[in-house]
């Protein structure tokens, strides 16, 4: 349904002396997503998972590679050229308050997409809004509220309703539960799971929380510093993680795992040619200094970018 081929997103901030410092936020990532599948992208802040999600929707500039949706290259297409595809790909952001216009009521926030895409006849928009709010567990009376009058959890429900309004075939959810409190987070996770069970739409779920990823996702991709370092079925990733970074991440939720990570003194160095994880890796070898390893197949559907397997026979 969706495939990314060597997608690279480069930002060019201007340095202190006016020199451009190109920065590859996402560096040659390839992956695919099937209909009805939930793919989790996990990684720490700065790993490029958010930028990768945004690049799919054309919200981040893809400098190399292709985004292919149902056989059609949609990389860098304008809104007009995207046409119907724009409706089919939707996003839910981390901070619900900043993703709504504070001066628009909930009714207006939900009616606008319905009107633009002419999904519902004008006379039935109010009924459609009431139906959407019910789907996400809110009373229909909320349609007259404004974003600031709602709590974070309620507003995130509206954000989900807004994405659902267009009957998308895929949603990118970027840290959609990270800003919510534990008790409210459970409500939203249950809601997302129930909606997925009913609609079977595909989802890319971006999170730094491995428990959340395991709860929702069929497959998990692990990102580190712009690179996809491991990807595979959720159960495989948790049972037999292959990349030292994945192991370290799992160590944060499983206290039985030893921590092999070296504390890094400085921020990562962009000019280093070797493996991105070299400085913090507990298993590094001299060979790791030369180049960042390519993704290799560990098991069917389970790929990893690490040369450790070649040192330790499996």
């Amino acid at each position: 349904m969706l495939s990314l081929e060597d997608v690279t997103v480069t930002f060019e901030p201007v340095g202190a002396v006016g020199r451009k410092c190109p920065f590859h936020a996402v560096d040659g990532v390839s992956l695919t997503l099937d209909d009805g599948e939930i793919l989790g992208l996990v990684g720490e802040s700065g790993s490029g998972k958010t930028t990768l999600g945004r690049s799919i929707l054309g919200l981040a500039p893809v400098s190399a590679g292709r985004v292919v949706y149902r056989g059609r290259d949609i990389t860098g297409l304008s809104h007009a050229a995207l046409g119907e595809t724009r409706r089919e790909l939707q996003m839910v952001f981390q901070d619900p308050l900043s993703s709504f216009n504070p001066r628009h009521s909930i009714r207006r926030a939900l009616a606008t997409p319905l009107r633009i895409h002419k999904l519902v006849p004008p006379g039935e928009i109010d009924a459609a809004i009431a139906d959407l709010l019910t789907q996400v567990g809110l009373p229909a009376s909320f349609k007259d509220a404004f974003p600031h009058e709602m709590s974070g959890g309620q507003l995130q429900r509206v954000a989900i309703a807004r994405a659902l309004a267009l009957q998308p075939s895929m949603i990118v959810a970027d840290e959609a539960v990270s800003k919510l409190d534990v008790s409210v987070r459970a409500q939203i996770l249950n809601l997302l799971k129930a909606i997925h069970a009913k609609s079977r739409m595909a989802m890319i779920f971006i999170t730094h929380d491995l428990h959340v990823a395991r709860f929702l996702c069929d497959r998990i991709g692990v990102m580190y510093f712009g690179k996809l370092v491991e990807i595979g079925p959720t159960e495989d990733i948790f049972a037999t993680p292959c990349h030292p970074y994945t192991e370290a991440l799992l160590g944060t939720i499983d206290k039985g795992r030893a921590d092999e990570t070296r504390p890094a003194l400085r921020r990562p160095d962009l000019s280093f040619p070797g493996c991105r994880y070299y400085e913090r890796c507990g298993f590094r070898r001299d060979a790791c200094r030369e180049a960042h390893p390519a993704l290799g197949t560990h098991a069917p559907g389970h790929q990893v970018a690490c040369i450790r397997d070649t040192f330790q026979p499996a």
Partner: protein
Amino acid sequence: MSAEPKAALDKPVLDKPVLEVRKLRVALRQGGGDLPIVEGVDLAVRRGEVLGILGESGSGKTVTGSAVLRLTPASMRVSAEGIFFDGTRIDTLDDAAFRDLRGKRLAMIFQNPTASFNPAKSIGWHFRWMLKRCGIGGPWRERARELFAKVGISESQAMLRLYPHQLSGGMLQRALIALVLAGEPAVIIADEPTTNLDNIVERQVIALFDTLRRTTSAAFIFITHDIGIAATLCDRIAVMYAGEIVEEGPAAALFSAPKHPYTKGLFATATALERRDAVLSEIPGELPALGARPAGCLFEPRCTLARAQCRRARPAMSSLVDGSGQRSVRCVLYA
């Protein structure tokens, strides 16, 4: 959730609290009357002890910590029946005298380490400034090396030359902790000190706090929303909800048998993901809005066990009859 067995303390826990807070109240100043944020919070922490304040956002845990150190904004009104440090009342001190305590004897570690440093100055500059402020003379590089060693930084000379933006988040938080330790504070209030860090780094910094807990004589107040961290680090836990402490007791007992319906719900929710339940247990509803606080129990609108009595009056903290004499709960079920 079960608390893990903790390593034995290398130092005695003294009985007399080094910091005691009685009936702390914080309210937001408003034209039509103040809106309460924190109501009647009692806290006591002894030397060598880690007291955890556990709560969700909006529970008043950060405001409580800030109010003790007079760091709340002017828009908030703070009052208390007394805040005592080493037996001396400090909430009535004038600002100059209080400043002399804060940062030296009473220290705070914030969530965002970047905001605690001057971005234009090196780490070394911050150290010299801190040592001077605490009146510690002698070779400062040597002192810095010792302090860095305590927080797990071996490259102290390189560290001193670097500027805050050059350090990774975890290292910056370690450097901040080393700075705070320079004054040998008697009380350290740590407000979500690992929340901004990435998971792996967070785990390492928590391990560092666990070491400090055992090797320094300071009392810690550890403010967190993370139940796992509270279970790892704290000796005693105070659970806050909507500006009140709803349950307090020794960490092990509290985690193995929570009593307050909110604590029970919170633990069930937080552990549901670890247990890998197909459907997560929820606490229905939301925190009461500021200015729309129920007259009765603050948790009553979300409580599945609520009865008519709960709506009439705010329950008081009552000791739990479990023989320990160390646990108390704010709920009519246990009154």
